[in-house]
């Protein structure tokens, strides 16, 4: 890895605020961002990134390469859960494996945004369709995780019913609502469409909020995530070694797969990094919210801890500069 990138990344305010939050939790400071402000920061970030992506999409349109990227993204979000589920089922149990599968098939919007902030400090361009790719990767992974569980655990077992009333079939209704109409997926997709529809005129109207403030707000959100992720670390012991190992090994592995795809699709460096980070990251917002309802017997101390306390810090501290070094070397 090019050490300059690691340093560059380390001198990025968002990352430093993440570390500040981690430090606060470690020394047991009473610093905290009181609820529900973290939720609001996260809604803001989805609103802002969605709108921005939509506006850029309104410039570039949906060309052939764009469609290929979107398809690859969806494909990854469906394939990853399958292999993860069968890999971990024996060790974590079917419910937990399904939740982890959905978690890693899906993406972390904040990791994506941190990567964008990283690209912007280097002046590397990227396309608005990458935001669309992100929006498209959340729901399929959730559906895949739940279906895998339902298909492999037969009726008669105390299998988790996604619905309160459903007897033994899949409550498709609720499953689709929880995956596609999930609050964060809905806001991201909606903002993307509104951005695409209103284009530059809409952008001018909201830019001071969605663009100018973006990095600053990201700092505050990462400060909170630093606190929360570090507090979650204490649950690691309960998650067990296989879970910990997976949470740290999966990101680089998925990253390499995504880079190969990016190379095949002929993406530029910026888009390549973003596709890589989508593959390498794991969801701790949309997926847990859905899993809590669809697979309530899965233990959130396992799948949220993995995504939030291990994979997320790994990606933003080491992953982004590491992946970018590789892309720089490979693409040149």
């Amino acid at each position, binding site marked *: 890895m090019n050490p300059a990138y690691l340093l560059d990344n380390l001198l990025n305010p968002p990352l430093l605020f993440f570390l500040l939050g981690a430090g606060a939790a470690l020394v047991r400071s009473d610093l*905290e961002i009181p*609820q*529900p402000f*973290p*939720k609001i*920061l*996260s809604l803001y970030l989805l609103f802002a990134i969605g709108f921005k992506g939509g506006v850029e999409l309104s410039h570039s349109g949906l060309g052939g390469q764009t469609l290929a990227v979107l398809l690859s993204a969806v494909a990854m979000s469906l394939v990853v859960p399958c292999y993860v589920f069968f890999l971990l089922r024996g060790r974590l149990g079917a419910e937990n494996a399904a939740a982890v599968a959905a978690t890693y098939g899906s993406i972390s919007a904040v990791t994506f945004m941190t990567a964008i902030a990283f690209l912007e400090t280097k002046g590397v361009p990227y396309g608005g369709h990458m935001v669309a790719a992100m929006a498209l990767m959340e729901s399929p992974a959730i559906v895949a995780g739940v279906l895998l569980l339902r298909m492999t655990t037969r009726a008669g077992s105390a299998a*988790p019913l996604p619905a*309160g009333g459903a007897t033994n079939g899949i409550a498709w209704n609720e499953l689709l609502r929880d995956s596609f109409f999930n609050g*964060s997926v809905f806001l991201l997709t909606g903002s993307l469409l509104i951005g695409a529809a209103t284009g530059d005129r809409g952008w001018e109207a909201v830019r001071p909020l969605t663009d100018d403030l973006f990095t600053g707000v990201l700092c505050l959100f990462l400060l*909170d*995530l630093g*606190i*929360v992720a570090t*507090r979650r670390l204490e*649950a690691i012991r*309960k998650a067990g070694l296989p879970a910990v190992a997976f949470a740290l090994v999966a990101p680089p592995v998925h990253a390499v797969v995504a880079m190969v795809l990016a190379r095949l699709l002929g993406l530029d460096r910026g888009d390549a990094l973003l596709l890589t980070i989508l593959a390498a990251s794991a969801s701790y*917002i*949309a997926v*847990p*919210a859905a899993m*809590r*309802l669809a697979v*309530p*017997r899965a*233990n*959130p*101390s396992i799948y*949220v801890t993995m995504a939030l306390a291990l994979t997320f810090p790994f990606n933003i501290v080491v992953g982004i500069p590491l992946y970018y070094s590789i892309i720089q070397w490979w693409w040149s």
Partner: protein
Amino acid sequence: MDPVKRVEIVTVAVAKPRLLEALERAGVPGYTILRAAEGYGDRGRRMADEVTAVFENMYVLVACSPEQAERVTVAVRPILERFGGICLISDATSIKH
């Protein structure tokens, strides 16, 4: 001053729609909900510090007749089994109903 049953339920906040439906089925005359509850129980710590409501509980208070309370416990039990939580029943007198 009528005697009533106080039913208190604590469970995950995301189960709110299901719980309200169960209370409706039980035919209770009213309920009060307090959100943003933290807690600890068999399923570990819920810190209510997430950016989603995943680790958040809610507290629900229902004042109702003994028969309604009976029906509430029946309707609520599967929810508690799926999502965790507690349901307490105690006695009180009410100056309105």
